[in-house]
């Protein structure tokens, strides 16, 4: 009996060793912090869906690196060629005849039309519909179709997506655009084709939802890789799709995406060489900041703090001077460098990537107009931090609201303590603000978990500070669009603050006339940002710097980070 057991154990060991050494294929091992709630890119707001989507789905166009690795360009993936302009707003996209699904079924104009029609379907209410209707370009009537009501119906025939023949699509835009913008528009996870038989099979009886993409069986791949297996919460494995028509672009034979919620585990696997990629977070960055493998880039995010201007407990919060005081009280250098971990302080809101598709290649921040605003902020103090100004404005606010000079106000910082950055920032401000305001300000906390910041703000009105929830990464062409969230027309209003002058200026920026003239658009954006700073719509704090590490044997296709393209990880190769 004992002998048998030993034998069986030895056999098992041998088999497991064999299984481990048998492969000599190029495997890329990466991770996600949490699993994708659904693979259906049309209906998931989580950015982690981008991983399976970019490996396993094709889109009309794909951004690929140049041969010299210095830039990138778009090539047709499902599309056979770049978009052809018919008239000012009409474009035709020819499709490849060889494009097909992983099971061999063809992808043609009907497939694409079905995908977009479903993506925009008013009854299905997919959450990423706006990525189809208006992102880099605005498709005629698409938003209207998606948001139609029973008393004002919009027909699908009016939407600017049409089939010319089996292999030609026509796109009608709402305004003039360039071919590049059309390409860029048709690269996201929201515009991938969907497989009609499965999409319909998963459809609820009342056609209000579909389970397409909720499991591996309910999803059809069309990209360079196909989903080999998916154990929810544990691992996703992609293997080569034999039916894919551009296989030479991609070098990996297999991609393993593990779901690793704990940073410790990620670091251990990385150090053991079982991961080829690691993004160090604020807790870990200190260890890797001087590591030669660490690369960094400025992301399209400016973290900011929302200010509630209608807190019933603190009448002084309604005063503009109070908001200015708070703006000047933020020591952004400390917050960015020490609390967020080697990030860039920022006293302005338009991020470093916004407007990078400009004619001269400069982002808005690098332009003359953008620099003027930065200089103005720096003239107040480093990144707008100035304790003297802060005290001055608070005194004015007291005077304005008729509050006695020696009043102590208690401000509530509401945040989710599981977010390490904000947890540190909140505790820092609790110590720092009383010092800056000489004891006139006290900070208390209201912590919440389990609900998003948006929901918290909808349900409570007694907070004063709160971290941003969504950061709008401004369009790469139009930097002013990052202010879109603070318009009264926008769905949720995190800070209850509206300003007519601000909204009027936004409308000026957004007019076709200004959008057509690039330098005028920059001037108007500058004015908008100045109004934003003068009114302190909210408090910008940190321009995010993103840190990443790649394994030594990973050969990246580009030399530096390319905004709008990244490192081109999918096109990387693995050296022996």
């Amino acid at each position, binding site marked *: 009996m004992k002998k048998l057991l030993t034998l069986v154990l030895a056999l098992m060991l041998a088999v497991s060793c064999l299984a481990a050494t048998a492969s000599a294929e190029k495997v890329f091992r990466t991770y996600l912090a949490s699993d994708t709630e659904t693979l259906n890119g049309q209906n998931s707001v989580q950015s982690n869906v981008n991983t399976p989507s970019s490996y396993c789905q094709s889109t009309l166009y794909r951004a690929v690196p140049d041969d010299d690795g210095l830039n990138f360009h778009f090539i047709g993936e499902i599309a056979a060629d770049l978009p052809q302009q018919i008239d000012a707003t009409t474009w035709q996209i020819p499709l490849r005849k060889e494009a097909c699904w992983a099971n061999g079924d063809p992808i043609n104009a009907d497939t694409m039309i079905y995908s977009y029609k479903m993506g925009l379907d008013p009854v299905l209410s997919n959450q990423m519909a706006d990525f189809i209707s208006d992102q880099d370009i605005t498709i005629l009537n698409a938003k209207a179709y998606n948001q139609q009501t029973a008393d004002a119906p919009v027909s699908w025939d009016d939407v600017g997506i049409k089939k010319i023949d089996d292999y030609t699509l026509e796109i009608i835009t709402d305004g003039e655009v360039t071919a590049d913008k059309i390409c860029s528009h048709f690269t996201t996870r929201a515009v991938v084709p969907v497989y009609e038989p499965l999409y319909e099979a998963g459809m609820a009886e009342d056609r209000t939802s579909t389970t397409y993409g909720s499991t591996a069986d309910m999803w059809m791949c069309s990209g360079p890789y196909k989903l080999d297996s998916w154990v929810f919460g544990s691992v996703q494995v992609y293997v080569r799709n034999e039916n894919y028509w551009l296989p030479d672009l991609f070098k990996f034979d297999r991609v393993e995406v593990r779901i690793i919620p704990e*940073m*410790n585990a990620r*670091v*251990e696997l990385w150090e053991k060489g079982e991961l080829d990629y690691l993004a160090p977070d604020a*807790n*870990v960055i*200190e*260890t890797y900041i*001087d*590591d*030669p*493998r660490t690369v960094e880039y400025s992301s399209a995010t400016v973290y900011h703090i929302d200010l509630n201007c209608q807190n019933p407990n603190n009448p002084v919060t309604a005063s503009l001077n109070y908001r200015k005081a708070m703006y000047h009280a933020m020591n952004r250098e*400390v917050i960015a460098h*020490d*609390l967020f971990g080697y990030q860039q302080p920022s006293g302005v809101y338009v991020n470093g990537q916004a407007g990078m598709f400009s004619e001269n290649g400069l982002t808005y921040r690098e332009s003359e107009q953008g620099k003027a605003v930065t200089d103005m902020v720096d003239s107040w103090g480093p990144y707008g931090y100035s304790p003297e100004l802060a005290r001055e404005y608070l005194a004015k606010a007291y005077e304005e609201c008729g509050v006695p000079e020696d009043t102590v106000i208690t401000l509530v910082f509401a945040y*989710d*303590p*599981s977010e*390490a950055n904000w*947890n*540190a920032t*909140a*505790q*820092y401000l*609790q*110590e720092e603000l009383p010092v800056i305001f000489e004891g006139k300000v006290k900070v208390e*906390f*209201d*912590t*919440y*978990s*389990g609900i998003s910041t948006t929901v918290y703000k909808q349900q409570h009105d007694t907070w004063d500070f709160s971290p941003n929830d969504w950061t709008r990464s401004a369009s790469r062409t139009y930097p002013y669009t990052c202010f879109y969230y603070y318009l009264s027309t926008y769905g949720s209003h995190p800070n209850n603050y509206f300003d007519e002058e601000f909204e009027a200026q936004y409308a000026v920026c957004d007019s076709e006339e200004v959008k057509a003239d690039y330098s005028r658009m920059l001037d108007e954006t500058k004015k908008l940002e100045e109004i934003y700073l003068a009114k302190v719509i909210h408090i910008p704090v940190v321009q995010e710097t993103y840190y990443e590490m790649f394994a*030594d044997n990973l050969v990246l296709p580009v030399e530096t980070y390319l905004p709008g393209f990244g490192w081109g990880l999918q096109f990387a190769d693995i050296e022996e």
Partner: protein
Amino acid sequence: MTVYEPNNLPQELLNIPQGEFERANNDWRSDERFTTEPIGFYKDAFRRLCSNRMSMISMWAILIIIVLAIVVPNVTGYGYTEQNVKQKNLPSKVPLLEQIGIFDGTRVLTNIKKSSIEDPKRYPEGCIINVIREYKAGKQTVVDVKVDYYKYCGVADGEYHWMGTDYLGRDIMTRLFRGTRISLMIAALSVITNLIIGIIYGSIAGYYGGRIDMFLTHLAEVLDGLPYIVVTILFMLWLGSGMLSIVLALTVTGWIGTARLTRAQFYRFKRREYVLAARTLGVPDRKLIFRHILPNTVGPLITRAMIAVPGAIFSESFLAYIGLGIKPPQPSIGILLSEGQKVLLQYPNQTFFPALLISILMIAFNMLSNGLRDAMDPSRRGEE
């Protein structure tokens, strides 16, 4: 066999004159008088407890930790909220011990670009003690270095953080003992509440039996059917974070175990002869419960209460781990542990010290409860 009957006694015996009797033994005899104090049950138990070396060490350890928790935060020279963000995540540095090379505030940094350590802005003069290893990786020269982390962060000479600092540059020792105070308070409050509720509930169910027992047991079962961690999380979400919420959340299901134990003990003892005797003598129910049956459960209950202390501290740290602990900036052992766990690989000292303290505390509580249990065992009364 001859039997003498009183009326049948021979004449000569009946007529013996009184005066001829005399005492066989002339000494005065009486019971020996106790010269020692009488010893009650608890006194006896205490005596036996004192003779158990482990228990005594444990008791002293607990007392010392309590004293430290009160004294240390006031004497370190740092406040528990006092921050210095430029001096964050310092390793521990202890006077005297630093001379022999441990706790000397140094740290080995690996895989550093050589160009970085030559930059005096990043690595100030004199902070690099020695270069351990130098090698080439691709085009760059990479080094492993041992740095004086205190100099690296610009800490003045002669300043010490015995256990290091955390992510905001707060002194961990100050926070640890402040946190111990809070954790112990949470534990004590919740254990006491649980005991009171559990004993009353369990006694009623166990003593009366029948329908009352049926009803009470089922009620407890409904609550117990929900896993306690889930209930605790829900309760915390509902009440919001804070010390009182934690105590309440730990009470929701915490008392059930006590109640169950009490009930079982009641079933065991309520039909014993001495209870029957007491009842026959007309002792009222209340007195029967508290005077005659309940003392039997004291031993197991004390053991349980002692185990419940780590239990409470655990639940608190579990809540801290998932982000539902007490409100910052208040520390607790759980908060410190969960903060430490996040940087376990980078700064193990932030986990080590809280873990060490909680272990000592728990060992002490458990050894003490062991001793108490043995001491309170009624069958060992009078043993040395």
